[in-house]
């Protein structure tokens, strides 16, 4: 339970970090909160030759309102997300989810950028970012690009992030006023990944659902965005039969592995149940329902 030999780097600016990533390529690994990477290093499942610690880069921190977009710096901790007044007001699903991520000690270190960039299907933020249709800013010495969260995830620990790139910020289209949203997660205990979880956003007008997005955590190789589940409630009053249909669609999209969290059957059922609960909760929070 000790890591192998590595060089430790602590850049003070994004530019320095990008230079190190450019220099080391696949031998370099970014250290943010460290709560996924360090345990893997201790088990020697990860043996990066160069560890690039981005915690000293102040420019990566903070949450700001740019009108039509909310921008969250990649180095912003889950604790900061949890206590953000801006997010509580304009995008409450993020603090709601942060409260369900691990425990206070972990949330004080763990970052939103790490959670989004890690590519572990057990991470909670990817599904939420997919539901919110957020995009990620990826920077390298070659320049900067934007990629939609919905396009970012390719497989277990596989993402669109290149070896020389750093995810620097998360950009969320500011949800319209009155959008209802909820993240519902079932887990075995504090600190565990979800048995299954669901993120739901929905808009209601005159009792009809005008828009919706549903995304799932930890029931596939990546976070999932079952479009059929959202379609099942769009244009309905989100009555019981619509909710059932959405849950069925979420279950149909789920492909969980059997592990100590439960059988495939159970975890699939929980993807449906969390979808159900998240829709009901989001509906109760939406204006115009």
């Amino acid at each position, binding site marked *: 339970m000790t890591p192998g*030999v590595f060089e430790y780097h602590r850049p003070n600016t994004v530019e320095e970090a990008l230079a190190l990533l450019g220099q080391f390529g696949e031998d370099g690994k970014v250290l943010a909160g460290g709560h996924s990477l360090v345990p893997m290093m201790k088990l020697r499942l990860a043996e990066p030759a160069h560890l690039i610690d981005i915690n000293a880069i102040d420019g990566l921190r903070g949450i700001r309102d740019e009108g039509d977009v909310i921008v969250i710096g990649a180095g912003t901790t889950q604790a900061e997300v949890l206590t953000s007044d801006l997010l509580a007001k304009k995008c409450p699903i993020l603090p709601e989810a942060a409260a369900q991520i691990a*425990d206070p000690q972990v949330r004080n270190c763990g970052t939103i950028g790490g959670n989004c960039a890690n590519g572990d299907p057990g991470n909670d933020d990817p599904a939420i970012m997919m539901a919110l249709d957020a995009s990620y800013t990826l920077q390298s010495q070659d320049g900067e690009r934007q990629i939609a969260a919905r396009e970012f995830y390719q497989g277990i620990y596989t993402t669109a992030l290149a070896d020389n790139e750093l995810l620097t910020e998360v950009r969320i289209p500011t949800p319209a006023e009155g959008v209802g949203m909820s993240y519902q997660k079932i887990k075995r205990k504090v600190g565990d990944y979800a048995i299954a979880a669901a993120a739901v956003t929905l808009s209601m007008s005159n009792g009809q659902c005008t828009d919706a997005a549903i995304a799932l955590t930890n029931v596939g190789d990546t976070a999932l965005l079952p479009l059929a589940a959202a379609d099942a409630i769009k244009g309905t009053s989100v009555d019981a039969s619509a909710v059932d249909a959405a849950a069925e669609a979420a279950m149909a999209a789920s492909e969980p592995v059997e592990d100590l969290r439960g059988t495939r059957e159970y975890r699939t059922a929980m993807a449906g149940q969390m979808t159900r609960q998240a829709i009901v909760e989001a509906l109760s929070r939406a204006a115009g329902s």
Partner: protein
Amino acid sequence: MSDAQEMTLEEREASIGGIGTARKRKEDARFIRGQGNYVDDIKLPGMLHGDFVRSSHAHALIKSINSEEALKVEGVLAVITAKDLEPLSLHWMPTLAGDMAAVLADKKVHFQNQEIAFVVATDRYAATDGIQKVVVEYEALPPLIDPKTALDDDAPIIRDDVADNDEVGQGKRHHPNHIFEWQVGDKEATDAAFEAADITISEDIAYPRCHPSPIETCGCVASMDATNGKLTVYGTFQAPHVVRTIVSLITSIEENKIRIVSPDVGGGFGNKVGAYPGYICAAAASIVTGHPVKWIESRIDNLSTTAFARDYHMTGELAADKDGKILAVRAKVLADHGAFNTHAQPMKWPAGFFNIITGSYDIPVGHVKVDGVYTNKAPGGVAYRCSFRVTEAAYLIERLIDILAQKTGIDKAEIRMRNFVQPEQFPYNSCLGWEYDSGDYPTALKTALKAVDYDGLRKEQAEKREKGELMGIGVATFTEIVGAGPVRNCDIVGLGMFDSCEIRVHPTGSVIARLGTKSTGQGHETTFAQIIATELGIPSDNITVEEGDTDTAPYGLGTYGSRSTPVAGAATARAARKIRAKAKKIAAHVLEVTEQDLEWEIDRFKVAGSDVSITMKDIAMAAYSNIPEGMEHGLETTDYYDPPNFTYPFGAYICVVDIDRFTGDVKVRRFYALDDCGTRINPMVIDGQIHGGLTEAFAIAMGQEIVYDETGNVLGASLMDYFLPSAVETPEWETDFTVTPCPHHPIGAKGIGESPNVGGVPAFSNAIVDAFAHLDVTHMPMPHTQGKVWKLLNELGLNK
């Protein structure tokens, strides 16, 4: 003596801080400041670090071990294998159960993560680097994982080394994978009672393999001093003296040349009773290198290799009449002991005290048969926060009586009332051979039922059932057998299971006491001082209690099985009484009266009918300056106590749960625990023990299991998967008590540490099954994870 005139008797009593005082724990001052001194805090000059190359297979022959590349790693000094230990006869070691266990795998591996080679390096990073470079070539053998197939004719033979032996330390056996058969009770009479009974019930009840998982893993620092030939081992030992004797027996080093020190130990729960390869290898490496060598387990090592608990596959049966009166109990058990029989029980008891399955009930006849088998899993079978196999026994009888209640339609509290051993029956001789010392079970249960408004809960449950909601009420009225134990019954490697206390009163009236036990969190420094305080009238704050250093402490058998208070606590009271008897002679001498003129009053001897007195503090000074002719100076003594019987703590627990029928999530709404541990030494420490024990019971019932796949891979051996509940999951505990003193213990105490685990687990299971009782569900397998509960909900169609 001026204080005496100013203080009332009550104030004097309070100033002592003796038995019955809710005194804050003395040891916590260092623990809450991070100032504890645990094994991994020990750093000696020139200290090296050792760690293991472990088996990736559950069952395989070792074709070769190549250390060449490992020895080239910077900082790696040695790679020790069985071949290197063989000339010292240290490649195998005797177990506490009469078997042998491999120290380093000798020709074959018997379970995944078994120790194969010990890499010694300048630091633990280099040791891990070296481990990665050792190449082991295996020839895989078919693994045997399911104990139910262990005795099949074509089962793979696990232990080639003993395959031809007709016994392996615990009596006759009949298959190479068989370890022992143990029977107790009257089989014929029991079978006849079952034949004749109106009602019989039978249920397969498994208690899954779990692990004590102390927060501090096992470890040691071994240091051989070449100048004087003395081996000092600092380690996480629950029984340091036993370790010293065993080390001496297997190394031939004289016991005076071995010093075993248990510093602060971060929880044991049975995991730290046994001897592990790490201890032997660290000691051997220190002898070979001349440097101190440290070995510290990782969490994965701890959960996957050092002593597990339970893994009992039980079939329990009750015979009863129409009124629910139990007429007979019968149990058959298959016990999975893993690859070596390293279970830690008194040696004459291969299934521990499992014959306490009569529980709190007056059962005329019974029979128990237990068969132990080898499998390709980690060895162990320790008592995880319970006396030996008592938690398995309590679980079985408490589940069975609930099933009987359902079968007869009698309320689950009422059926217990009908079957209790009655207060006037004590001392009570059970049909399976125990003499229960004292108890008042009806009062305990009545108090509990009233406290939770049991009738109101049943009414609420009926209403909820009408609405399709699931609410369960679990009752457990358990009896333990603890305090091992009487030497006529109990020994470990031939050592009687007495315990000891040495007390020295200093001239100015303060005290140091040393015991043969070893606190791993129980608060001995606090509670044993309180016993002495009451017996000697010396403030407990002026009494230092030390344990764990075999060079200073009197010989003892250690701390496990709730034995410290019943055995060492009794020795403490008796040692103090010997001192008080001598003090009385000194008092008579100083006051120039006869002993018959003196009476004891809190902290002094007083001349009856007068104001003349002398405090224990003043007597202490006199013991060193002014003693009667012919008396020896000083005020100190040692007591070795062989208890005449075990103690039998008991309790009545009630658990109320609500179950989410869509997710299988179980919410513990209420948990009420009434314990009777006899005389209560420190109510605050007792509450702490109950809170901890109930939390572990909750963990076991709801999630703890060491799971293997069919090839013998151990799954989930980290705290990511193994369920250690945090404060968030842990229910709130309500504690209550009755006091039925132990008639044979000097202060009437019975022990408390393990009751909440023993009684807690069935209370949870009973509550969860009770939620489904109206649907004819009689049993569900532990642990009650969300997924397992949901499976039942799904089968019953309740989640629609």
